[in-house]
């Protein structure tokens, strides 16, 4: 049996996103990026990206990535049950991309997302922002901006539920499944 508890409420997440938006603005200023292209990873990443996109008041529409076709566990688990179309309304070539995800754990999702992006074109740069950065990295992936920094034992999962309300819940899973 899995056992779920709310870790951060919607109100707290609102505050965290507010801070992320301000850190991201500073980072973009520092890098002299005036018109970044924001891209969220389905599903939780898109929810966070929607919030950040409106707070930063970006001109270009938000992009949405589904990484199901690029997952490295297809050879073990078969097709992911939920596949949504990727939607990148603006060409990524020569653009500065802000990639957004909800939880960074192993880094495998980000590896897959980078592969998807590069199959769409050649971005000028990619920055990564995640709501949660937790322990358990298996690949050399680090976010540029992050909301929460957590140390969790391997059997515990932190998940974003939403979109209304956005909540972070901690789930104790029976076995340690890779994200």
């Amino acid at each position, binding site marked *: 049996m899995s056992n779920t508890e709310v870790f951060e409420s919607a109100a707290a997440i609102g505050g965290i996103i507010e801070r992320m938006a301000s850190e991201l603005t500073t980072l973009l200023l520092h890098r002299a990026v005036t018109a970044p292209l924001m891209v969220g990873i389905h599903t939780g990443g898109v929810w966070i990206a929607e919030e950040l996109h409106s707070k930063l008041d970006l001109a270009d529409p938000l992009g949405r990535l589904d990484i199901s*076709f*690029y997952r490295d566990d297809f050879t073990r688990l*078969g*097709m992911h049950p939920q*596949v*949504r*179309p990727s*939607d990148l309304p603006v060409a990524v070539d020569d653009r500065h991309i802000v990639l957004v995800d909800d939880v960074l754990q192993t880094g495998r999702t980000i590896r897959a997302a980078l*592969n998807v992006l590069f*199959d769409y074109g050649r971005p000028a740069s990619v920055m990564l922002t995640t709501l949660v950065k937790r322990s358990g990295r298996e690949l050399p992936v680090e976010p540029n901006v992050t909301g929460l920094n957590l140390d969790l034992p391997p059997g515990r999962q932190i998940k974003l539920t939403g979109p209304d309300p956005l909540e972070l819940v901690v789930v104790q899973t029976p076995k340690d499944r890779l994200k």
Partner: protein
Amino acid sequence: MSAPNIQLDNQGNLKHFLTIEGLSRDLLTEVLEKTEGFLGVARQAVKKVPLCRGKVIANLFFETSTRTRTTFELAAKRLSADVLNLNISTSATAKGETLLDTLRNLEAMHVDMFVVRHADSGSAHFIAQHANPHVSVINAGDGRYSHPTQGMLDMFTIRRHKGDFENLCVAVVGDILHSRVARSQLLALNTLGTAEVRVIAPRTLLPANPEALGVRVFHDLREGVRDADVVIMLRLQRERMRGAMLPSEHEYFQLFGLTEERLSTAKPDAIVMHPGPINRGVEMDSQVADGPRSVILEQVSNGIAVRMAVMSMCIGTQNIRGQGYSDG
């Protein structure tokens, strides 16, 4: 549960895709939903995803085909699989042993999937029954029996234009008797809960008891397309006709050829489909084929995405089996 379906594994995942028959509405819907995801791959600069990297897919075409073979090949390549194209001309009598021998040889080359087109009904099932358990088989058309990926690409095209099947009236026009495409379409339309499915054909091109297909039968084109949301034209299968089933192609067009004027009784936003290749001036005139309501070329593009979805679902099921997750 009914009798085990050779197309599914123990968990109900798609292992072979041989016919629409026996597949649930949920599974057909899953194919349509996965297809939406694959449609976007064509918009990538690199029109490829790594899902089937390292897999070998053999196109076994015992009967000629341009569209189906090329779209299957393109679909496999967009999944990053390696593709073997084998055009095997064979006499029907030599089939049995030759077919199995061909199969064993390809299996020895570690082929993971066979895509089979054959003039004899049941060929794809035969291959699926005799293939190694880790191999998947996809039917790319067998005799008069089934052409399930064509059926599904037509369903996908309808869904994209018209949404839910439960409110639709779909008319299928032409050679129902010889058409595996029609069989697959009618099965899929009924499984997906289409409100009204009609067939429009001369009596000579209908099976003995057409109502058993779950359709309303019309012999008059203008009557049959009245208020239809979708009109699907079928190719006249001259190569499968024995004896005089039609007086002439000219006369067929006079009675069953689709023109703008005859289409006027259909809903104003009705779409017109055809699996190709079109016999212009026989099944429909060029004005309709190239007109604003025709979605014929879109069907071809959608065919690639549907085939990607089906192939990757079957390969995904193989992966689960290969790791011993199921199928004890």
